[in-house]
């Protein structure tokens, strides 16, 4: 039964413009960011960066590092989190006003299987978003590499790092999606679920870090366990992350948790959110 339910959920999701639209927007944004950076690098003058910094930027734009940098755009604390929220809200909450949740449940589909199939389809869609970032980043940085070096260093490609980066970036999206799934089930409203998800991602997390920092440095350490900072920490699983770690630590004034622990905690948050959604869904009267 579960494979059939998963195929139904996937068909519902892939039949909508939303998923393909999100992938297109993500690709365009990544493309735009890279083109802007390339434009800066192409100018012989007009910026105050020292030559070493410029060379570091060029390296970051070229294969192999350029390929791995794509993951930073799509992680949960960045654009990816926002896309995950919108996708999750649409996939879950819109079934209520459309009365399609009634249709499946009244046909003997178990509530647990229904929710799990939805979560699995959503997770697969998030994987597609990460893949989009990798492919777009790969193509544009590949073109830049070809332009500046005259060839592509296929032999230097860090395949293992790419797989790891893919998995880590995907894991960083899950807490945002599962929080939104929970709110969507609880409120049955796409608008509220999207609002809460985006509000949390854009406002609450940042505000929490600032407030905790103001309160005391010790309390601020708690902020390390917020999903956005865990996402940053998790990305240190990928080799280029050392710079990322340094940058984030500088702005947040504390050290991030270990990447392995960060991934485990992110998965824990995702499971907690899904568990909460299940708790709400199993008790729910499907009315309206």
């Amino acid at each position, binding site marked *: 039964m579960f494979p059939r339910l998963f195929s139904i959920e996937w068909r*519902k999701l892939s039949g909508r413009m939303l998923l393909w639209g999100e992938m297109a927007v993500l690709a365009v944004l990544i493309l735009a960011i890279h083109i802007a950076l390339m434009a800066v690098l192409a100018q012989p003058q007009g910026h105050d960066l020292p030559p070493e910094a410029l060379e570091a930027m060029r390296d970051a734009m070229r294969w192999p590092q350029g390929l791995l940098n794509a993951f930073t755009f799509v992680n949960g604390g960045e654009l990816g989190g926002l896309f995950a929220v919108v996708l999750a809200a649409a996939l879950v909450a819109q079934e209520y006003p*459309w009365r399609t949740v009634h249709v499946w*449940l*009244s046909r003997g*589909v178990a509530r647990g299987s229904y929710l799990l199939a939805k979560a699995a389809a959503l997770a697969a869609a998030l994987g597609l978003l990460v893949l989009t970032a990798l492919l777009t980043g790969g193509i544009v940085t590949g073109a830049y590499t070809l332009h500046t070096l005259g060839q592509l260093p296929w032999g230097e490609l860090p395949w293992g790092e790419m797989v790891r980066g893919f998995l880590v970036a995907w894991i960083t999206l899950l807490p945002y999606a599962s929080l939104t799934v929970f709110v969507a089930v609880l409120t049955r409203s796409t608008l509220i679920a999207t609002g809460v998800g985006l509000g949390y991602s854009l406002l609450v997390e940042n505000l929490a870090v600032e407030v905790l920092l103001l309160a005391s440095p010790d309390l601020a350490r708690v902020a390390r366990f917020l999903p956005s900072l865990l996402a940053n920490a998790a990305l240190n699983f990928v080799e280029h992350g050392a710079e990322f770690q340094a940058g984030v630590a500088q702005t947040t004034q504390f050290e991030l948790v270990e990447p392995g622990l960060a991934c485990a905690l992110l998965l824990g948050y995702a499971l907690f959110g899904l568990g909460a959604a299940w708790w709400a869904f199993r008790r*729910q009267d499907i009315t309206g």
Partner: protein
Amino acid sequence: MTATPVLHLEKLTKDYGSVRAVDGLDLDVYPGECFGFLGPNGAGKTTTIGMILGLLWPTRGRVEVFGQEVTPMRTAALRQVGALVGAPGFYPYLSGRANLRLLARLYPQVGAARIDEVLALVGLDASAARRKVKTYSTGMKQRLGLAAALLHEPKLLILDEPTNGLDPIGMAEMRRLLRELAAQGVTIFLSSHLLHEVEQICDRVAILHRGRIVAQGPVAELLAQRRDLEEVFMAVVREPEAARG
């Protein structure tokens, strides 16, 4: 009747806060029957159907379908049930046929031929089936809802106001279809406030008022003392209210 009921409700009760929507319903529907479930608006018909279909948690009581208990967490018996409840739910961005194809993925035995068959049964032609559901009229959605309910050849059909939104021709076609299905041995549980419609189609009826069954029995028996179901309905629903003042 001595046969095992297809649908069995026992002391079924549903409270919304301090409001009792359904109050201790006892009811049996037997194989091959067409059972009319009547009541004025707000009588508790849709709430009862919601509990039968595992959408609502009963406050008390029990629902059995084909001898198996049904609750929102135990719905396996509903795989043999087809339902059309209120405004039918569809994915507006998919065509009518694509919606049915999506539902058909639940049932390995349902193929493209069956989809064509049910579309023809409810009078949706190929061009209508190709259109996205968001362009459908209420009547077309209702027809598609019935097609969806019939898709997997259910043994029990639960219909809540199935003629809503249909024009007179559509209503007549729906009645004819229901009669044909009943003749084929499909058990039908038909909730409606159109008394004439129920009188024409159903073998037995129950009249629900303020969450309670106030009359129940074969249509012929109820009509023995009255001219039509409307009179019966008025007698059991309106007259006691009038007497109470």
